[in-house]
Structures are given as C-alpha cells and as structure tokens.
C-alpha cells in the first residue's frame, strides 16, 4: 500500500513538525509514504471565500501531484473535506473522482483503513479534544452532539490507546472554535470571542493540552493561549501518536 502524504500549505510553512509526525506515524503503522513535492494547497481559502471559480489551477496541480497512489492522507480534516467535496477537473475527472474517494484525514485512515486497535505511544497528560467542524460534521470522524445517534470518536479511540493520557470532558463537546478560514480576520471580534470561549472550556476542565486533528483551529486557539500567557499548549494528534 502506497500512501501519498498531503500536507496543507499552512502546515508545510508553519507547522512542519506536524507533517513530520504524520509521516512517521504512518510509517510506524507500516505503510509506504510518498510526499509529492510539488503540492501547494487544496484551494479551500479561495472556495470558502466565494472564489471557487479560481481554484482550477489548484485542482489541476492537486490531481497532478496525487494521482497514482492507493490513498491520500492528510493531517487536516478541513483540507481533506474540501478535496472530498470539491475536487473536480473536466479534463481529468476520473482521476479527480479516484482522489475524492481515497483521500483520508489521518485519524479516520488509521481507524477505518488500517484498523489500528493498539498503538505504542505515551503522553501522561490531561488533554481536551478539539473536534474541527469539517472533520466532525463533514468527514464524521466522531458523532455530532446535535444528532440522536450512537456516540463514537475516531480521534478519541486512538487517544485512548496512548499510555498515561487522560481525556477531559468538556461542557460543549463540539462547538466551533471560530477560526473559519478568512472568517478569522473578516469577523475578527466574533472569531476571537469564539476562540476564547472554546479555550476556556478546555482550561476550566483542567486540560494541559488541547489536541485536535486540524492545525487551523489549533493555530487560532494557540494564538489566543499565547496572548493570554497560558501554559496550556495545543498539539496535533499526530504529535501525540508519534511520542513516547
């Protein structure tokens, strides 16, 4: 099985250690990982701003980079969802369709495709899980609090395999953090208030780390935590799974 590693642009530029952790976790799980070097971005920033018509170049590039692999895996629920829902190319629609059906966010890939039941990692800390909305309500990596349905959580399942790790319960299990792409600057006041409230939920329940599958949300909450001089840090789930 060969997996292409899709590293979203902001992870590539600002959080390379998350991409490295993702790469190493996948390798530990026994899959061959390739990083197509010419990748840039999934095009979501334009599309969510109403400029989906400008994403042609990104789409073509994505297909060029990610065709020919069994799976495409990314440490971002949001970017994965964008590809799954919006990757199209009239001239290469067959390839686009294959990619749409085989692109996975890291935790769902580990639990659904690799069916990981045990994992060797340790992280003796209290963590709060932050579910990015696109991973949660788009990819459905966990049950959504609004629905009358059986609870489950793919990131939660993986974190429960980590030695010493304790997941703290939150008052609002899956409220949005307020990042929202360009929303975070276009609606700065609301975005920040949402982020502060989300962070406070974790803090008031004693979390030492806020852990999630989407660095975009975590970057936003990290910015708020650091401005508050808080000792609490954010971590991508790949970093925890890659730790001993």
């Amino acid at each position: 099985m060969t997996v292409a590693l899709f590293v979203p642009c902001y992870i590539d530029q600002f959080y390379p250690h998350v991409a490295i952790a993702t790469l190493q976790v996948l390798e530990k799980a026994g899959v061959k990982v390739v990083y197509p070097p010419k990748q840039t971005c999934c095009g979501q920033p334009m599309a969510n701003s109403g400029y989906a018509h400008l994403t042609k170049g990104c789409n073509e590039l994505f297909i060029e980079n990610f065709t020919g692999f069994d799976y495409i895996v990314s440490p971002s629920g949001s970017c994965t969802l964008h590809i799954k829902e919006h990757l199209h190319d009239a001239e290469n629609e067959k390839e686009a369709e294959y990619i749409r059906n085989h692109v996975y966010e890291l935790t769902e890939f580990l639990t659904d495709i690799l069916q990981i039941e045990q994992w060797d990692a340790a992280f003796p800390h209290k963590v709060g899980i932050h579910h990015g909305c696109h991973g949660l309500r788009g990819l459905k990596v966990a049950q959504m609090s609004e629905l009358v349905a059986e609870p489950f959580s793919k990131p939660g399942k993986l974190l429960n395999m980590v030695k010493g790790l304790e997941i703290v319960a939150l008052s609002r299990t899956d409220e949005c953090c307020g990042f929202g792409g360009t929303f975070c600057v276009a609606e700065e006041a609301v975005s920040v208030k949402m982020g502060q409230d989300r962070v406070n939920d974790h803090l008031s329940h004693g979390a030492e780390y806020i852990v999630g599958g989407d660095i975009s949300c975590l970057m936003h909450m990290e910015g708020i935590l650091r401005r508050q001089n808080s000792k609490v840090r954010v971590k991508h789930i790949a970093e925890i799974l890659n730790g001993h």
Partner: protein
Amino acid sequence: MNRENNDHATLAGRFNENEQRVSWHDETLWWVRAKRDKAAHTLPEWEQLRAAASQIKSNVLSNLSEYLVQFEGRALQNGVAVHWAADAKEHNQIVADLLTARGVDRIVKSKSMLTEECHLNEYLQSRGIEVVDTDLGERIVQLAGEPPSHIVLPCIHKKKEEIGELFHQHLGTPAGNADPQLLTRAARKDLREKFLTRRAAITGVNFAVAESGEFVVCTNEGNADMGAHLADLHIACMGIEKIIPQRKHLSVFLRLLARSATGQPITTYSSHYKKPRKGKEIHIVLVDNGRSVQLGRADFRNSLKCIRCGACMNTCPVYRRSGGHSYHTAIAGPIGSILAPNLDMHKYADLPFASTLCGSCTNVCPVKIDIHDQLYKWRQVLVREGHTTTVKKMAMQGMTFTLSNPRVYRFAGKAGRWLMNKMPYMVNNKWNTWYKQREMPEPPEQSFSEWYKKNRER
C-alpha cells in the same frame, strides 16, 4: 461587505464591545440549544422524524402550485376569503384595505415573521392604523422601538432590568422592578384590555393544510387565540411555502417544531382554524415575495422548507456571539443568511460570510435544510454576481497565482517566514487583524518540504 459600516462584521464588532453581555447572550441561547437536545433525545425516532418532515416538504415544493389551488378551493368552501400578494407591498395594501374598508384603525397582531419581513407595522401606521404586538417578546421590542432579534425569542437580547425600565415607562410598573413574573402580569393586564377592545386581529400561520383548507397557529402565550376569537375580522398572513398536503402531516411537524424551538414537547396551543365564527370573517393572505424565485434556484430552494423554529440560531456559535440585530434583516442567523440574499443580493451580500461553515445548523434543522452548504453556495453566487470588494478580489487573485505555482508558493512561504523571523514588527502590528487579539504562529526555520528534501529525498 457592501454595506460599508453596517455589515455583519461591523455590527457584530459593536456587539462584542461588551464582552460580559456577549457571554450572557451566548449562555442564554446555548441553554435553549441544550433544552432542544434533551427534548430530541426523548424520541429514539427523532432522526426518522426529521427525514419524514424533510421529505414531506420536498413533496410540497414539487407540487406547490397544485397544493395552493387545492388549499384555496377548500378554504373558500369553508367560508374563508383568500387573497394573493405577489410582494410585500401588495400584502401590506391588502391588509390595510381590509381594515380601512371596515373602519378599523386599531388592531392586535400575534407573531408573524412574514409581517416583519414585509414591514407591515410601519405601513399600517403610515395609513393611520395602530398595531399592538401581543406576543410578550414582540411587545417588548415594539415598546423599545426595535425589531425582534430572534424569530422565536424576539427580545432575547434584552436584560430583564432593561425590560423593567421599559415597562415602568409604558405600563407603570414599579421603578427598578425587574421580576419576570411581575412584568409578565403587567403585560397580561395591559394586553387583555387590548384584546377586548380591538375589532380586528392579525396572526401568522405555521402550517396550512391543502386537503382541508385549515391553517394552524402555534403559540405558548395564547395571544393569537385571544386576538382572533374576540375580533370580528381575523387576517392570517402566510408565505406560500407554509402549505402541507394533509392533516395527518401535522403530526410530524408539531412533534418537531416546539422540541426544536424551545425543547417543549409541543407549544401550549396548536390552534386549527378552519371556518370563521358565525357572522365573522377570516381572510388569508398568501404571499410570494420572492419565494417563487427561490423555488427556481435549485441550490437554494430547500430553504423554503423552513418551519421557523429558530434552532439554527440557538446552535449557531456566530449568532450567539453577534446578536440578531447584526444580521440587519427580519430573519437573523443561519437560515436568515440563506433567505435574505434571495430578496436583495446587494444589501445582504455580507450574510453568507457571517459563518464559519461549522455545520451545526444543518444538524439541528428539523426539516434537514442543508444550511451551511447553502451558505457556501451563496458565497459563490454573490462573488460571481459582483457583490464583493476590489480589495478582496485582488487578494484572492494573488493567492490563486501563488498557490497554483509551486515555485512561487515555496518562494513566498520562505520570504514570509524570513520576514516574520527577522522583522516581526512588519507582521505583528496594528494592520494585522489576526494579531489584534492573537499571537502569530512562530515561524520555523524550514518548511516541511525543505525538511523532506534534506532528509528523505537523498
């Protein structure tokens, strides 16, 4: 966006100047969301009910003209008069003409979002007709000279102390008294006098049944019934999308409506009006006002399934922290943001962007409207139709150029990180909106692709 200083972001920014109040607003509405969750969880068949409701509404959209004609025929047989209004103006004129023809210059009105949408109150007042809103929340905002900020909880943005002061001025309650019980009693007394003396009543319509010609009005307070059953003339105003095929379908919607709205198992009163009282009149005004246009928009027609429960507002993390007035339209929140651009793209171009697309609205919607997907689609339409700013357009084009060219992207990334490292003041300054209340991420020495090249490609 196109409203300069009155767009959602600006109004929300103003709302956020008082953080404590925002937290209070957020908590109050979250509590309503929590009550909704609790009520939904009492029914194991909840998701099947939502699916059934959505499907009934799909059937309505497919057969709307036929159902409307059927409804009209039955209503006429029942002795109810039916009027058709193409837009808000015609609706308002029909209502005013009905009143003036009978010499009525004072009326009571129960909650109707349609009449808010049409700005009926202002119009009637301009024609010399006094309107008293009888829903407590609506009465409060009416006395305050404000529009409702929520379709189910019109004065949810007001603190009880403010309401106490308002009632002290208008209803003579004791100064400084903000006891909800006392204030409600004062309103009850004041409005009883209005109910007993007004000869005409306006109500909204929650559901209208095609097969029987009856319509259903739901309230908790009993104000619609107090108005309608004491008046000689009852005018019921409804959007054309309120039709449902058969009486038995009411069971599905009445099970969903109140549970979604407030967490109650049903509203206190679900009144089925079929025929007028002997010697009295019922008139129904069927209003289009853009709905037939929305029906023609394949991506957006499902918004017409809305039963106005307000659940999407209560769950919306943006609505809870920006307040209903920041949406500057009669119907605020997520559903309002997909309805309003249909009426006026220019005026409401900002609303579909007042969302993080988190999707919670879609999940609570009792008729399964794909609200957040429609917000995304409206964004595309608004940009395509030119309702965007030059600055944003240029930024997007620049971003597109960078992200479509791997080499430009790598160079820009490197240059950006270099700048952040060497000259942080170039980034961390007052022109950087992110930095106002958040730290920037710490730029690493090398990107992942650079690391990969060094460590793995050899």
